[in-house]
């Protein structure tokens, strides 16, 4: 029987992502200082903190609700380029998500989220943006589904792909976002949005790793503890 990713799993995902972003806030901002305007870590930290608050204040009843609430909160609270982009990604992911959530359905929804980013930002892989982490992650997920892997392993593959995609942004010359203003000078720096995307995907691993095989609602607390 397929593992089901329940509401608690999604809540735990955002909880963990929020913690990691808080921890890496200064690193992300420093990456943005090199080729942008030194606010990416601050922006995402503000947004994910609000996401946590929203999820606590209005406990969501379903995975779809988690994603839509998170996406809406990011749009409403982040601003900048990354707010609408991440916000739309999660909202579209939520809207595309069928419940109960199997890994295959998760992968499909994830791809819908990535497509939303592509549409909104009019960017493609190779432009040195978050898409250079998200697109490989999405492909890795699809491949894992194809291979019939368990969520944990699938997430590990996606996280690895996102991380590799992030590293691959270093030699790229930016064609979208603020970094594109630097022309050649954008070469040699890691894209902050790709870096934050890799962190968010990696949180899937943490949360899945903290979960016993048969995932249930009360597992979330454990995941939360593991991510803390």
């Amino acid at each position, binding site marked *: 029987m397929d593992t089901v990713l329940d509401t608690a799993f999604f809540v735990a995902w955002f909880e963990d992502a929020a913690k990691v972003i808080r921890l890496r806030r200064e690193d992300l901002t420093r990456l943005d200082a090199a080729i942008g305007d030194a606010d990416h870590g601050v922006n995402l930290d503000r947004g994910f903190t609000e996401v946590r608050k929203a999820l606590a204040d209005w406990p969501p009843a379903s995975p779809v609700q988690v994603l839509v609430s998170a996406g809406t909160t990011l749009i409403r609270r982040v601003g900048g380029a990354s*707010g609408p982009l991440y916000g739309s990604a999660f909202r579209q992911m939520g809207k595309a998500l069928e419940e109960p959530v199997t890994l295959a359905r998760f992968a499909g929804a994830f791809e819908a989220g990535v497509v939303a980013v592509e549409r909104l930002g009019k960017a493609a892989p190779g432009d040195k943006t978050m898409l250079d982490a998200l697109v490989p992650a999405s492909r890795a997920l699809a491949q894992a589904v194809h291979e019939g892997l368990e969520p944990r392993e699938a997430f590990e593959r996606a996280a690895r792909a996102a991380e590799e995609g992030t590293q691959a942004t270093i030699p790229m010359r930016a064609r979208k976002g603020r970094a594109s203003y630097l*022309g050649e000078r954008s070469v040699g720096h890691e894209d902050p949005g790709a870096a934050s995307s890799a962190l968010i995907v990696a949180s899937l691993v943490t949360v899945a790793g903290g979960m016993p095989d048969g995932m249930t609602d009360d597992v979330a607390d454990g995941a939360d503890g593991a991510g803390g």
Partner: protein
Amino acid sequence: MKKLINSADSVVGDALNGLAAAHPSLRVLGQVVYRASGPRAGKVGLVSGGGSGHEPLHAGFVGYGMLDAACPGEIFTSPVPDQIIEATRAVDGGAGVLHIVKNYTGDVLNFEMAAELCDDVEVASVLVDDDVAVQDSLYTAGRRGTGATLFVEKIAGALAEEGAPLAEVVRVAGEVDERSRSFGIALTSCTTPAAGEPTFDLPDDRVELGIGIHGEPGRNRAPMAPARELAGLAMEAVHGDLPLRGELLVMVNGMGGTPLLELYVVFAEVEAFVRGKGARVARSLVGNYVTSLDMQGFSVTVCRLDDELTRLWDAPVETPGLRWGR
């Protein structure tokens, strides 16, 4: 880093409180700055916004003859759609609302989202993209909006104040943008309150050419040089893109940390350059108008005037940052 703030988190809100306290002509509600007098029936509403840290842009340009509302985001971060939606609805006097948007991915996306969600208001938008340091091509996010934003806000604001319909205001706003070009040079980086350290390091014998207004590094570096040469570099870049001709509106704008004395030195060189090209500075502004926190440096923005634009530039304006004629 030393800054006159209470905390990095509260700086925008605290400054807005100060703005409201200092200017009874403004009202601040939910991180939107309005004219205290409210919308005027039949007048096109003008809304702009963008990251904070560029003061007096935009909030300092709310008032008679210019903006109806400004949406300040966090430092260097575009505002969120909620602010823009609220502002748009609040300033609509039945004649529609113009969004004046600086061309940055974040500003564009947030204003677009807001505009889509304001289906009860007729919304048009103009994209300001005057910075010749960025080539508009498939390989960039397009030219940045910098100093010309002030020109667009002033001139479109004057036309709106006269009661012109939205389509007319849109046309003139677009015309100002098309006729305007900017180029900026930094002597130092700036320090955002949240980062606490300069965004980039710039040695004492180097300047950063082709900067924007977010403390981002420029296209390249050059050796520090006398004001005449730096002004020449900036003006050549502008002139190379839009040949200087006829009557010009010229702004020599400080990036926030450069004293007025030096801006006048630069203006003298810019004016001589313009004369050298056979054009004329018909109107001018010298001061800190579109800033980048505490950055030292300047930008120069040129707009090729025609009779209509000159008349609208000269029209009365009454805002904290720009005021004449009343």
